[in-house]
């Protein structure tokens, strides 16, 4: 069976004024189903850009990207959006919840774009939030919840479409130590359940839980090793 994600000589360039700067300089990477990967590296090394490519948020400037066997570097914008709606989930450092929506509606958002009806959206979001220990917060808005609870809602949103991969960007970066630990335990559980996780982080305690740590420097993979 092939890898879930396969990057070959992926490059990403941005135009900067008159010149161009290459942020990713030839990334080769295979990610198998069920892996828990931490991507680490100093600021400006290209971690976030790599997550951007892995999450189909932008296309590589060069190289190839196969997701589940599909060459997606040639997908148009709508096809990438549909791919994200159906097969990817995102967790952000700043949670990025919709401030005026309840927990249920926040968690259900990807299903809206994936084509689920209202009843199904609500049922799946509720079930997931209850499993994540937020049964008492279903109709609360983000402003009425703690940071940890908000990140759980964000994780519920990332999981609600039953994605093939969850991509997280510094998921504990805005949380206190105890809450951060709880979130990481949740990630452990997800990994234990066979979910593929890719987490960009500075935090060593995140890397400790990952099965594989990829270190990036200057747009290249510096090391790729089992933790």
């Amino acid at each position, binding site marked *: 069976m092939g890898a879930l994600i396969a990057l070959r000589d992926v490059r990403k360039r941005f135009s900067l004024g008159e010149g161009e700067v290459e942020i990713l300089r030839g990334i080769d990477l295979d990610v198998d189903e069920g892996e828990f990967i931490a991507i680490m590296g100093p600021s400006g090394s290209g971690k976030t850009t790599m997550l*951007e490519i892995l999450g189909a948020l932008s296309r590589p400037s060069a190289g190839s990207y196969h997701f589940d066997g599909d060459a997606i570097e040639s997908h148009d914008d709508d096809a990438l959006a549909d791919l994200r709606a159906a097969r990817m989930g995102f967790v952000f450092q700043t949670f990025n919840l919709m401030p005026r929506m309840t927990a249920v509606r926040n968690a259900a958002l990807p299903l809206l774009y994936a084509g689920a009806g209202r009843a199904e959206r609500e049922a799946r979001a509720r079930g997931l939030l209850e499993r994540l220990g937020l049964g008492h917060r279903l109709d609360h808005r983000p402003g009425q919840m703690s940071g940890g609870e908000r990140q759980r809602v964000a994780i519920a949103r990332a999981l609600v479409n039953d994605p093939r991969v969850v991509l997280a960007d510094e998921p504990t970066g805005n949380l206190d130590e105890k809450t951060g630990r709880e979130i990481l335990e949740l990630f452990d559980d997800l990994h234990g359940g066979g979910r593929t996780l890719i987490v960009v982080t500075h935090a060593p305690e995140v890397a400790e839980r990952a099965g594989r740590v990829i270190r990036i420097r200057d747009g290249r993979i510096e090391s790729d090793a089992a933790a």
Partner: protein
Amino acid sequence: MPPREKLARLRRLVPPLVGDALDNLRASWRAQALTLAGIVWGAASVVLLLSLGSGFNDFLDFGFGKTGDRWVAVDPEYTSTEAGGRLPGRRIRFTVRDLDRVRAGVPSAGRAVAENQDIVPVVTPRRTRATVVSAAGPELFHIQNHAVGRGRYFDADDERRGRRVAVLGADLVEVFFGDLDPLGRTLQIGGEPFEVIGVLVRKGWQFMTNSDIHDRMIFVPLSAGLRALGDGETIETILVEPRRIQDEPVVRREVRAALWPLHNLPPEETRAVSFMSVPEISEPSRRIFFVLQLLLGVVGTVTLAMAGTGVANLMIAIAHERRAELAVRRTCGARRADLMLQLLVETAVVVLVGGTLGVAIGLSAVLLIQVAPLPPDFPPPRILPSVVSTTFLVLVAVGLAAGVAPARVAARVDPASALRVT
């Protein structure tokens, strides 16, 4: 995407987006208050202005309609040319023969009727008063838009048999009969007894006469009236009604062609009869009122366009403020078109909420003016259902026009920017 799938996506997305838009409006109505006020003001003004305009129009139609809005009065005058061995300045006299000629020889005319008017003493046991009496054929009823309130108008049979019957203007009942029922009672007109067979509905003020004269007149058949009012055969005026209002100039030509041989007049004679035409008299007023309506329409449109500028501004601000939210929606699988739809739905909600409020205020203002004590004959504004639908249509068009450009810009948000929000 196939159209059916697009429609399904639209049907799935619109209801929650409308909910979100209402939530956003509730949460940030203070920030949107100015824009909303602009739309409310615009919609209210348009409803009020258009209603005032249709009121003016009614007023015009009504004011002219009360006297009949398209007849032409043909009056005999003096000749200006030498004809048949007679010097210029000969007095033309109309008789029933002229009426018959007009009826037979003016194909563009729908109706023609002779009318004599005179002020004569009218006597009842209650009162004697000099009163304007009109003697005319029964067609006058239609040509001058009379309406019978009680009893009946005289008909062709009354005319043919020369019956002495009379129809009273509304204000004369009290004058001549007080509280008594006038129907079947008699009045003396020019010394001859006439039986009252009908009373007209009150007309009020009329444009054509600048008075309420029809309410203070007595109408009798021509045959009986000619004897009571004149020499028994001379006719003062022939009223001709064109079949179509635009045929009025043709009617003039045809009337001349029909009457000239009867009076031995040469083709170059132009002054032997004069014409007084309601369309000609009403034309300047109609033009003024048209310009007035145009002005009201322009004011309304400009007001709405200003509201539209407010909407465009608001949408630009929303699109800017919510870039982060839009980017996150993109990571959740929203397509660009979905974001555009979202912003257009928000525009539509703001516009419809403001528009509904504005239309309600405009309608209330119209109702208030309708029940307010107005100067007599001030045209009350009238609500046309089309005014409300037009206002909403214009609002939606303005909203969409104002919302599309900001929505397009906003929908181009880079989904990757969701990762860079701090």
